């Protein structure tokens, strides 16, 4: 039901740690107990079939959901929404983009909410994800793949060290998948960390990410 991730003692300070995590819904155990930790410069891939609880796990790690059992530690402190500060960026299943607004307006709002890294602008971010010229296009008129790219542009802009990405490869073509991998590479080389879920179709191919496999409860 779970996978123990081994943890070399010489690693730099732990970013995120899950201890004996478990969740149940309507008296059914979804997963647990789960233990793992995440360090700067690491990518962890959470794999599992549909219904195995990947999205739920991500929501617990982002503070949206409280686990049934166990706890999550961020920088050694128990994770509460109050303590998140600017460290976590969540790319959820629903992208969090307002359909009525343009790409640029959405990005400007995200900057207002989450701050901005040095040396980058929304226009530059859009160009990096291949959407140059789409700044003033309403999200409503974009395809699913283009919307995904706008959401990825947001990741480039906000100064969060920990990325929690739910199915980042969904809705993307081959180029898009390479884009995601490039962004992840760049992010971990800067000292960031990422936790991504995937139902196994396309996966992070650079280096060897640690894999945690969730199985749907029998």
């Amino acid at each position: 039901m779970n996978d123990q991730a081994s943890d070399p003692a010489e690693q730099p300070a732990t970013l995120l740690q899950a201890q004996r995590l478990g969740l149940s819904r309507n008296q059914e155990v979804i997963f647990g107990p789960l233990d793992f930790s995440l360090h700067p410069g690491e990518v962890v891939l959470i794999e599992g079939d549909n219904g195995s609880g990947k999205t739920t796990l991500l929501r617990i790690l982002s503070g949206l959901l409280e686990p049934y059992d166990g706890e999550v530690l961020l920088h050694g402190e128990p994770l509460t929404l109050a303590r998140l500060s600017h460290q976590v960026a969540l790319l959820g299943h629903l992208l969090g983009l307002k359909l009525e607004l343009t790409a640029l307006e959405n990005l400007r709002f995200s900057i207002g909410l989450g701050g901005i890294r040095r040396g980058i602008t929304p226009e530059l971010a859009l160009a990096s994800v291949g959407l140059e010229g789409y700044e003033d296009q309403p999200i409503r008129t974009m395809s699913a793949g283009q919307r995904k790219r706008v959401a990825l542009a947001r990741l480039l802009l906000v100064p969060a060290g920990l990325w929690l990405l739910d199915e980042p490869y969904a809705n993307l073509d081959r180029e898009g998948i390479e884009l995601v991998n490039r962004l992840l590479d760049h992010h971990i080389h800067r000292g960031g960390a990422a936790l991504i879920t995937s139902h196994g179709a396309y996966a992070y191919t650079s280096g060897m990410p640690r894999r945690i496999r969730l199985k749907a409860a029998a």
Partner: protein
Amino acid sequence: MNPVLLWFHKLGSPPYFYRFAGRLIPWLYAITIIGMVIGLYGGLVMAPADYQQGDSFRIIYIHVPCAWMSLFVYAFMAANGFVALVWHIKLSETLAMTSAPIGAMFTFVTLVTGSLWGEPTWGTWWTWDARLTSELVLLFLYFGVIGLYHAIEDTRQASRAAAFLALVGAVNLPIVHYSVVWWHTLHQGTTVSLMGPSKIDPRMLWPLLTMALATHTYFFASLLARARVSLLQLESGKEWVRSQLGSGNPAEVSHV
């Protein structure tokens, strides 16, 4: 550790509560029945007729205890809701949610018996004075809590949301109680006080207090019985439930 505290702690465990409640329920029902028989006999037969209202005042022996219970049960529900939200105690969630329908029933009976009393006394089935209106609002609050609880699929989330709503609506309780003091209303003022003398003939008072006791024990008996059933459903996968249902008498699992 203090034995009382220890017992409370044990009580929070569903299997222990299930057994404890099971032993307590028959006693509570017994007291209820005896109390109601004595109270109703004292009120309907023995107490003298009211000098103003004649015999129609006797509905007080149902109306007033139910009114007191409608407020008490809401406070009980809100208190358990608070405990459930702050300390995540599962038993409190169950107690809060199972008391809602009982409280709604008491409120409904209060309104109906009040209406039946109002007709001969005031000449009207209903009036929009402060106490009646706030009691009606209380009924809607109960419906809201029950409705919200049933509208959410996950039981635990449903109880927490409904408990939260109950707390928000608790602000209505002092309004109902003090409505006869704050506003000039058709409804009579406070006659029975906890501290100090009551303005009611003692021969009329003791059946009323007996009925009050009986309604309290009825509430707890009904609550515990329902809570037991609820706990069985909630914990249906667990070991203790299987052993209970396997060995126990199926007739035990029922509620009024």
